[in-house]
């Protein structure tokens, strides 16, 4: 953390929506829950359990957090933020500086950890890894599936959202390490069962342990996600960049308050679009050079890394210059 002083509020860009922190609550030691809403009460982009958003802080830092609220409420997002002692300052800023009324940028949501249909689920959470699993429990109930949760943490006081789990009775096993030691994965998982899906989110050692524990389960039984909330992701670029349109031979400078789609349109090149939220794919454009800053909800990680296409309704540029096949 280079500074804890307050910075100017984030500017609206089309790569993110600007949301207001409407609630900030300490829900466990070193874990705050943020509730975010549009300042004008507008509906937020849809999401499904397992999804995460990019949180763009006033410092310019971008961090990813799982959505842990209620998708049936279209006007708010909820995230849980663990203070990362060894992090680069994003979570510290959220804990120490960010306050209700502040504005933050939010990109996405994207989902690399969707809940696939199954008769039965076994959920395993380690620490803040509970966040993507919380909405999955509700969803599993809605789908009429059988499920159980094993939730580990360092100690009870450090484990967030225990209150939200209390109503589930003996389907939830809470196992703080200082009370019951390391998680008994073998005992919880039992014998491999077709039709059961195992979902796990938590720190790397837990993921390694569950991968080992599920090694004799049928393929595709186990689905994992490293917990979002780590200090990852490139900083959102705030400097202008140039977009060169190779076929039309035009170049346009895209400033921070303007979307690529609008900028292209301003020089007379219309790209058909529809949702303008990075969800429908209509405006897909081939990238010839430069690295896109992907902000859409469509491409998976491999496709993002390929960098050969982008959705200019929301995505931007990591480099000074982006060359598009337009």
């Amino acid at each position: 953390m280079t500074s804890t002083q307050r910075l100017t509020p984030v500017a609206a860009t089309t790569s993110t929506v600007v949301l207001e922190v409407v609630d900030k609550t300490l829900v466990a030691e070193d874990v705050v829950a943020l509730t975010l809403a549009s300042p004008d009460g507008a509906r937020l982009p849809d999401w499904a359990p397992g999804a995460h958003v990019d949180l763009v802080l006033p410092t310019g830092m971008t961090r990813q957090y799982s959505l842990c609220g209620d998708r049936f409420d279209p006007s708010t997002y909820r995230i849980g933020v663990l203070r990362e002692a060894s992090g680069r300052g994003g979570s510290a800023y959220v804990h120490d500086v960010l306050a209700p009324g502040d504005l933050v940028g939010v990109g996405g949501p994207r989902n690399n950890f969707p809940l696939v249909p199954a008769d039965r689920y076994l959920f395993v959470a380690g620490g803040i890894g509970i966040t993507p699993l919380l909405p999955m429990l509700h969803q599993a109930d809605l789908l009429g599936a059988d499920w159980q949760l094993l939730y580990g943490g360092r100690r009870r006081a450090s484990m967030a959202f225990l209150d939200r789990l209390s109503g589930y009775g003996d389907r939830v096993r809470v196992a703080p390490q200082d009370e019951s030691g390391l998680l008994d994965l073998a005992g919880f998982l039992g014998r491999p069962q077709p039709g059961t899906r195992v979902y796990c989110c938590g720190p790397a050692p837990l993921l390694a342990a569950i991968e080992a524990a599920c090694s004799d389960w049928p393929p595709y039984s186990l689905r994992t996600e490293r917990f979002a909330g780590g200090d990852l992701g490139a900083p959102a670029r705030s400097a202008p960049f140039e977009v060169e349109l190779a076929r039309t031979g035009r170049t346009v400078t895209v400033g921070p308050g303007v979307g690529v789609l609008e900028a292209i349109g301003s020089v007379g090149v219309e790209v058909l679009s529809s949702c303008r939220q990075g969800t429908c794919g209509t405006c897909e454009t081939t990238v010839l050079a430069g690295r896109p800053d992907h902000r859409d909800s469509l491409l998976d990680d491999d496709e993002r890394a390929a960098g050969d296409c982008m959705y200019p309704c929301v995505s931007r540029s990591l480099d000074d210059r982006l060359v598009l096949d337009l």
Partner: protein
Amino acid sequence: MTATAAVPTSDVDPFSHEVLEDPLPMHEQLREAGPVVYLSRYDTYAFARYEEVRAALVDWQDFSSAAGVGHANFRYEEPWRPPSLLLEADPPRHDAPRRVLTKVLGPRALRRLREDWSADAEALVDAVLAEGTTFDAAPALAGAFPLRVFPDAVGIPADGRENLLPYGDHAFNAFGPANDLVAKGAPRVAELSAWVASRCAREALGDDGFGAQIWAAADRGEITPAMAPLVVRSLLTAGVDTTVHGISAVLHAFATHPEQWQRLRAEPGLARVAFDEAVRWESPVQTFFRTATGDVEVGGVVVPDGRKILMFLASANRDPRRWADPDVFDLSRDPSGHVGFGFGIHQCVGQHVARLEAETLLTALAARVERIEPAGPPRRHHNNTLRAWASIPVRVTPV
């Protein structure tokens, strides 16, 4: 019915032959009546303005699809077939099938088809032109091209493809009330449904088509094996008639707007915009229903829990509150944001397929045809949901 007291009421029948022949006057009448109109004949609420239609399409929480997106209310009525896992489902059940199909039909997945479909389009246009310069564009181009490329892409064998259009036509009629159009299709329902179901099985599908990819997703556990055939069925139900009528719409638009055809010829890159403008202008899918999940207030009117709402996509696409000169077919317009493919989580998952079909066909045609003009009066095909042409006689001047 207390809520209807304050609601403008209309006794129009949107599914009568008179309206199906030309729905535009009714659209204007309903738009002008108010943001919400009560249709007394069907005991249904209607949205005909862009703002309310788009908001309802997006708001899946208040406006459910799981009780059916047609006139029948599945809360009280038995569906004529097992409901669609996509069109007739809400979150969370909607999530997994939608996610799989979004990937299978995504723009990136279609890249490998572009070259083949361009060649197919060129071959089809050459063959039609070789037969003569006066022809019926509805069957010869709009009907022929999707039936040539789409079933191949899905991976269904050649025999029996003639069943696809009648099956789709009935499915879209069945979203309307039980009128003569539904009765007309009834005798073949069992036979056509059985044929379609037989084409959705894993062993009936080719190795690398959309169908096989849906089954591969089932193998990876992304959907269940029981869901896979119904997801394939969605492709076969919704992927043919809609595209045929969308392409008919753009061909008819060009035949009646020669200056726009010249524009496309000068700038072939406008083919995609042209198709979407035609989808806005004509709205091949005219309507869908939703069901209120509670007492929902819209425009000062309470739509009571469990009641059906009829959304006029076509009317929204010509709402002057949203569009300048909405009745004009104009390639200089940006049609982005039209609701011809719907909007929100149920927005047409095959829209990129439809666009690629239209784009490749228009591009082939524009390279070969200097002028296209009507060669006789066109004739409508009536369907409770679709706006369609039975016949579009044209005369073309090859390059």
